[in-house]
């Protein structure tokens, strides 16, 4: 090293383990962001979940009675946890990646010697962290209102992880194509929220007429919510094998698509 502190001879080629350091740095940066803006990331879902439990669970739920063999509160708790995971994993990646594009600091990553699959993985991990953190907060709130018994832990973990990954990737796709802030709120407002509400969070599709059941089965969120609910209650409206296969294939296809979008520079490079 010379007097300016620069290594003049050695080219700094990508070192062993540099990818892991790069990945960890993206995740740390995402986690710091989640914590830095905790008033936007962690508090609102806690308030929303509390209101759902008070209004739908305690007040209305008492009149509904049982659903799927358990109290209405117990029935909707897994759905509400999953809803918060979906919204927050999606919201984290779409706002963070679009913010980076908008502020141009995405260039910090694009000039660095990191493969595109790792950049996507880093953002997905950030979405996963926020989705799981918020899911945990909502679970703790749910425990104030009802008992939650886990029937199949593997199903709970697999469903929540796959769902968080899928919606993080969808958030990434939205951020890649978005050209302004309106376009990052369009999908959550007009597509994600209706699909989540109609995805069996608050009711069993067995209550619906045949045509509505068939229509509901076209909604992928139904499979995620039911796989997750199965882990808690041991009961599902849909075939579990189909649910997990659908989630795994969707996650893999979306991951491939996101890497391809970065490779081509769509939305990120001219």
């Amino acid at each position, binding site marked *: 090293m*010379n*007097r*300016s*502190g*620069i*290594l*003049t*001879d050695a*080219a*700094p*080629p*990508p*070192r062993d*383990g*540099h*990818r892991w*350091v*790069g990945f*960890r*740095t*993206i995740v*740390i*940066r995402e986690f*710091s962001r989640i914590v*830095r803006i905790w008033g936007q990331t962690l508090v609102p879902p806690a308030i929303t979940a509390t209101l759902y439990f008070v209004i739908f669970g305690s007040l209305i739920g008492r009149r509904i009675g049982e659903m799927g063999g358990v109290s209405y509160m117990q029935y909707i708790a897994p759905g509400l946890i999953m809803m918060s995971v979906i919204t927050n994993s999606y919201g984290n990646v779409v706002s963070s990646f679009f913010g*980076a594009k908008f*502020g*141009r*600091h995405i*260039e*910090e*990553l*694009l*000039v*660095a*010697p*990191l*493969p595109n699959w790792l950049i996507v993985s880093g953002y997905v991990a950030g979405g996963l962290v926020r989705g799981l953190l918020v899911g945990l907060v909502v679970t703790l709130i749910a425990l104030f209102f009802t008992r939650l018994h886990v029937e199949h832990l593997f199903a709970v973990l697999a469903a929540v992880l796959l769902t968080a990954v899928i919606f993080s990737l969808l958030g990434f796709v939205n951020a890649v194509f978005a050209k302004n802030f309106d376009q990052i709120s369009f999908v959550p407002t007009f597509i994600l929220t209706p699909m989540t509400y109609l995805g069996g969070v608050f009711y069993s599709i067995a209550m619906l007429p045949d045509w509505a059941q068939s229509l509901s089965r076209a909604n992928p969120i139904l499979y995620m919510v039911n796989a997750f609910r199965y882990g808690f209650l041991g009961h599902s409206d849909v075939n579990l094998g189909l649910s997990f296969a659908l989630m795994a294939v969707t996650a893999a296809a979306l991951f491939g698509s996101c890497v391809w979008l970065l490779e*081509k*520079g769509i939305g990120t*490079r*001219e």
Partner: protein
Amino acid sequence: MQALSLRKLTKTYRNGVQALKGIDLDVGQGDFFALLGPNGAGKTTAIGIIASLVNKTSGQALVFGHDTDTDLEAAKACLGLVPQEINFNQFEKVSTILVNQAGFYGIPRRVAKERMELWLHRLQLWDKRDAVSRSLSGGMKRRLMIARALIHEPRLLILDEPTAGVDIEVRRSMWEFLRQLNEDGTTIILTTHYLEEAESLCRHIAIIDEGRIIENDRMATVLRKLHSEVFVLNPRQPVAAAPVLPGYAVKLADDGSIEVEVTKAQNLNEIFAALSARGIEVVSMRNKANRLEELFMRLVEGRDAETGLPKPAVSA
């Protein structure tokens, strides 16, 4: 091996604009290289392609022999970029920006923190390490971008107008810093609109205009091509009209100074003698424009509209 080689590099944007029309460029290791051109000439596009922020249409870019098509990660590891626009997260702290950037280059956090301290001291930003970056002044933001580009110790540093909008004191200190960096072995490519900056710092120069390289040589060689210079002479007493000096183009400026164009074949002694003979006493003299600026304007403004080639405004 060259620090940078561009071969037949072209870029056509989706709106049809041809920003680069097949440029070839070599920058040697350890060089301090000026890449100049008017706005929209293609400088930033070329830099964007080298740094993989812009997709090229065709051609090849090699950084220290690493092809950006086939060996992109190695090419990127050799390169540090200071872009024209501020592009760090304005909500992050100065130290966080540097440590994170080091992490993206695979530098472990402990080493990253040591380097962050080193570069913040060298760029006189250490006192601001805990400041949120948006609170920095314009000059500090520019220095932060330089520190960020150096955190992984690149062998090639590209600066796209690093001194734009900073005051003269900061600019001079940046020059000194860059000069030292280059002496210590870092190859530097600089784009700037301050041609005095390029002339003072750089050993080689390329001028790009309308997507083509129209000049590429050693700075001294290029400056020798300047056919004539305009000198501004300040007389002690105001003169009523421009004095007639046979063989010289002379005009009287609005502020009363005398502007004389002097070609390589002519000399200043003749002018002073002629002015003394007319009772005009000259108290000071300067170049009307920086020599490089003069040459630049002639090259860029003197392009033949049909061929796209420079008109012979400079001697060969």
